[in-house]
């Protein structure tokens, strides 16, 4: 990966994108990276489209603005694709979408030329592992695979540590299973 990785998260409020932005930053911190994670704050309404941002760098991060030219865009809800320009400023970066569709179909729907498109059924995985639609942690697994930012063990290790304070072992295990499955099942082209 290049020296500064900028990740923009698109989701609907309540899907855990802010938590995901934070988890990814914290996982990178454990690898001694410099990090930033911030949501774009607006009126908080369940289900409304939101953005969050993560920056990861080898050296201190000086910029504090929103991410306009992301290296990676993660979309937690495919119903946003027709209504939010998720690929804005992405260039030849990586787009990762929670969907049952194929990368080729997403690429065609969004008229994307350059860059990588990756798809994973994060909601489906979450329904099976967590018994509810919580696509944020599986999307971190997909992100790890497609970008090479982390190994599955690094993501799982951090999840166990941070979730260990709040959640039961069953929930932690289910999240780690989500991450692992998404890491294995994500398709990129």
């Amino acid at each position, binding site marked *: 990966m290049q020296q500064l990785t900028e990740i923009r998260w698109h989701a609907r409020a309540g899907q855990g994108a802010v938590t995901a932005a934070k988890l990814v*930053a914290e996982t990178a*911190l454990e690898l001694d990276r410099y990090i930033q994670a911030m949501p774009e704050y607006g009126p908080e309404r369940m289900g409304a489209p939101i953005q969050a941002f993560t920056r990861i760098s080898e050296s201190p991060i000086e910029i504090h*603005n929103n991410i306009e030219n992301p290296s990676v865009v993660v979309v937690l809800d495919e119903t946003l694709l027709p209504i939010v320009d998720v690929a804005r400023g992405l260039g030849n970066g990586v787009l990762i979408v929670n969907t049952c569709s194929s990368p080729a179909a997403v690429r065609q729907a969004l008229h994307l030329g350059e860059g990588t498109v990756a798809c994973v059924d994060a909601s489906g995985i979450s329904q099976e592992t967590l018994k509810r639609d919580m696509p944020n942690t599986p999307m971190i697994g997909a992100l790890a695979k497609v970008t090479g930012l982390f190994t599955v063990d690094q993501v799982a290790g951090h999840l166990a540590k941070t979730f260990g304070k709040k959640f039961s072992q069953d929930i932690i295990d289910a999240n780690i299973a989500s991450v692992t499955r998404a890491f294995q099942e994500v398709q990129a082209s």
Partner: protein
Amino acid sequence: MPTQKTVAVTGNVLVAEAFRQCAPDVVPAYPITPQTTIVEEFAKFVANGRVHTEYVTVESEHSAMSASVGASAAGARVMTATSSQGLALMWEELHIAAGMRLPIVMANANRALSAPINIHCDHSDIMGARDTGWLILFAETAQEAYDNTIMAVRIAEHHDVMLPVMSTLDGFITTHSIDRAEMMDDETVAAFVGSYVPENALLDTDHPVGHGNFAGLGGPYFEFKHSQRLAMERSRGVVKSVGAQWSKICGRPFGVVEGFGMEDAEVAIVVLGSTAGNARHVARGLRESGVKAGVLKIRCFRPFPYAEIAEALKGVKAVAVMDRSESFGAEGGPVFLEVRSALYDLEKRVPVVDYIYGLGGADVKTELIERVFTDLGEIANGAAAPAGLVYLGAR
């Protein structure tokens, strides 16, 4: 031996940690976005017994500062936090705190003022408090907000100062972003700030004193104000020496102004708060392509470091001042007015342009900073400076 741990936390969480480590006797608290998580986190520390503070929940910011004034006059170390409309509601008591020479430390999450309603970052609130007699520090990052807050306690309580200090951080951009920072161990901070020994405590009944009395006709009010001016002047040296001492312990630099590329800069941006980072990021890139770009960050706004600013800018060909607040009807924003005034005594006139930017949290895109440097380059090459201020990026 000072030991620091690397943390990934928001600016507000780190400021709350600084509060805890400074162990205030009293914290009167009232929530307001985007400051709320400071008093919220601090309330948890109190509830969990991690700090022994009298935590006073009040019904407004007017009362928060009134309670701060009362507790500080009684002899307590007092800290509080606010933002925006809350700071505005404290207006009367801000003057009283400074006039009574009470070393209160307050964090402010810099935020726009209504109307229209907006909860996001600008410096309208804090610039409204610039003449209240408080010292005012600005932070670029969560790290600086933490360091400034710890230093603020020492500065405020210094015998030669005895004035309240505001430690400010940019709303949401710094208060709510998770950032990498170093947190000092509790013992080192406790030893650095020391314990507060009030000199004129109301509760010291063996030495009865009055505070804030009537000082009417005949000059005593005038003398009080003069002594406040002298204390603020003395604080210049104290801010620097406390900054140098903390810097030595934590290993991070502190200056009332901090320059990037100012040694040979031909064009320079003067800026407060988080945008200093954006400006430095752009200047760094421009330097790689041969542009002698510089950034001068003002970290201490009151007392205003006019001598340091004049010294840093004296050889620059064109200067931009970034104002994140308005002073409607004035020739420019508050920072512009002070910077240009600081340059008045220079032998060689330096062109200064004022850019109003980022009001109500308008995003400070990289291209906007690039545009400022482009403008400056043209002025440095002989183009006329724009007449009047520029609303940067306004549609």
